[in-house]
């Protein structure tokens, strides 16, 4: 079957089946919401885990939900929300599978208080290509547990996951939106907002003045409401029906968007009650929004810099992005907290993370991203495999210190295009 990942940079072709084959290049895939090539497997054999999407059990005393790995966060929420529960950690889209969330050890707006998704897993069941089956947890086969979380699907077929959920009184979020005019304002607001369970900022990556990025944006913070009903969202109503022509997104339209978006609120601080869809999943409201970038696709670039490198290291990278004029209007800025990850290869570290899209303009884009990559590495930071389509093997080796330990647990009959491009070449 032919398929591509969310960034649509390339299309791959592979055979398809329901189980791992011996002596084959297998890869288990989920809902293909990763941006780069971590879920691609050119000329290999893919297993579509979405076929295995059953809910299995719910221990409401200990708040542990068990399900097959192919179920999406969307389906999990449909079960949890009416019963007064929510996901412990969620990324910016609910259309990821449970297995994909584990394999990428996803993070969300509450990283500073809750860590990654992997921090909330009780156990997982893994199958390997030799037919062996493993129950993995912090006490049973712990190395395989820690290799599989954030392990990009390379350790085996994650069959089932048991994870802790949280109680909520309502499906609403009490939210606040704060305008900020500069990065230093962002950091000041961020310091004051640590007690909010959910915090994130949208930042303008295009406007600049006098050779420096303006760094204005909107700071979003919130928490689950004590009041209101427990209501599940509906399906997305808008859709991008076909690939947009690549000129649709250009500096002018992006400037217009940024202006309109920044000025959606006049007041410096606006309080509102939002549905969880509005607060957590604004982009999910538009089906196939990735088509907005045109047929050449786009790169999603996400990096983290440790606090030790600080704002001093962050600002030049932010300036470089803004002054290039290539960054898109969807730019997310957040700080990560200090809760250690459970995965050997997990991406977050305590520090500052920025994620944004770059429309694929060919060599120009690649050169810019490579320049940014070296600035990130020099500052002691790293890039996120779930988003990556361009990082150099040396970068990965330098910035993921547990790589050789991790490779001991890799399944010999599993591979991905990310593995081939980055890890195999080390």
């Amino acid at each position, binding site marked *: *079957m*032919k398929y591509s990942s969310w960034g649509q940079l390339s299309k791959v072709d592979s055979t*398809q089946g*329901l189980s791992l084959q011996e002596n084959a290049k297998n890869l288990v895939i989920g809902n293909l919401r990763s941006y780069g090539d971590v879920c691609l497997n050119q000329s290999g054999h893919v297993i579509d885990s979405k*076929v*295995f999407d*059953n*809910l299995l059990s*719910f221990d409401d005393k200990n708040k542990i939900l068990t399900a*097959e790995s192919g179920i999406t966060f969307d389906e999990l929420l449909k079960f949890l929300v009416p019963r007064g529960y929510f996901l412990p950690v969620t990324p910016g889209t609910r259309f990821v599978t449970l297995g994909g969330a584990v394999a990428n050890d996803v993070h969300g707006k509450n990283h500073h208080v809750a860590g990654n998704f992997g921090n909330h897993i009780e156990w997982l069941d893994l199958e390997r290509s030799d037919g062996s089956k493993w129950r993995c947890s912090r006490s049973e086969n712990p190395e395989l547990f820690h290799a599989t979380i954030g392990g990009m699907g390379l350790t085996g077929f994650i069959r089932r996951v048991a994870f802790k959920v949280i109680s909520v009184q309502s499906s609403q979020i009490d939210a606040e939106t704060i305008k900020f005019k500069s990065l230093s304002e962002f950091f000041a607001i961020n310091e004051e907002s640590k007690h909010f369970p959910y915090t994130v900022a949208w930042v303008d990556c295009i406007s600049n003045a006098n050779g420096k990025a303006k760094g204005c944006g909107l700071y979003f913070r919130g928490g689950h409401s004590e009041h209101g009903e427990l209501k599940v969202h509906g399906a997305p109503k808008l859709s991008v029906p076909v690939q947009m022509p690549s000129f649709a997104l250009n500096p002018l339209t992006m400037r217009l968007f940024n202006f309109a978006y920044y000025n959606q609120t006049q007041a410096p601080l606006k309080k509102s009650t939002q549905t969880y869809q509005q607060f957590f999943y604004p982009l999910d409201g538009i089906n196939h929004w990735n088509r907005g970038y045109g047929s050449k696709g786009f790169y999603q670039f996400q990096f983290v810099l440790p606090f030790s490198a600080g704002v001093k290291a962050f600002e030049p990278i932010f300036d470089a992005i803004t002054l290039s004029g290539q960054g898109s209007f969807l730019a997310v800025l957040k700080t990560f907290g200090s809760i250690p990850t459970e995965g050997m290869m997990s991406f977050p570290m305590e520090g500052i993370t920025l994620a944004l899209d770059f429309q694929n303009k060919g060599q120009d884009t690649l050169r810019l991203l490579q320049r940014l990559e070296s600035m990130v590495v020099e500052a002691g930071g790293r890039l996120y495999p779930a988003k990556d389509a361009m990082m150099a093997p040396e970068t990965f080796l330098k910035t993921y210190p547990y790589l050789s330990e991790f490779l001991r647990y890799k399944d010999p009959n599993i591979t991905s295009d990310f593995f081939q491009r980055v890890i195999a070449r080390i």
Partner: protein
Amino acid sequence: MKNILVIGANSTIAHAISRQCAVEKANLFLVGRDPERLLANASDLKMRGATRVETVVADLADHKTHQKYFEKAIAEFGFLDEVYVVHGFLGDQVKAKTQLPLALEIAEVNYLSVLAMSTALVPLAESNKIGSVAIFSSVAGDRGRYSNYVYGSAMAGKSALISGLRAHLSHRGVHVMTVKPGFVDTRMTADFKKGPLWASPEKVAEDVISSLQKQRNICYTPGFWKLIMMIIIHIPERIFKKLKL
């Protein structure tokens, strides 16, 4: 609380039907071949609201098995409000044209097993143990075509069987509906390239459940297939035989 028997319960479409019944708090009796899948599917249905879920592992190609699971279902639930017969096997047409065992398997699983099932169903229907029945055939049975006549012919036989059963059991107050899906995105069709004509298992399940409740005789799902097939069956044979449909 409806009592519902699902035959071929591990199939993608069957599980979609079971899920929609579970939300309505039905009592479900599932018959399937893979015990691990059956258990996982049963757990899922309980989570989604089914009042009771009972399971029986059975190979539906074993003609003697139908009597046994029907007996168990009646023993558990007494009366079966709805019965869904969903199992099927596509097979590789190219191979089946010349490979005897595969060709026979396609006929066994798709047609003969349903014929065998009907011999167990009829006495129960005649003694007021069954409410209504939906049996899955396919648009492929409406006309034998170049591209899949082995499967299509089994479906054609099945459609005639269901139609006959409908007539016979209507005199007993038991409704029998033929389900004719077009292209559906399931495990069975995983290797096919999908296009705009393809339906989701959830949509098919919705159509089938509501059509059975309305006591329709033939349910083409999605509905546009009725028009497509009407055109296809009316193409004169001298032209049709030259097409590679």
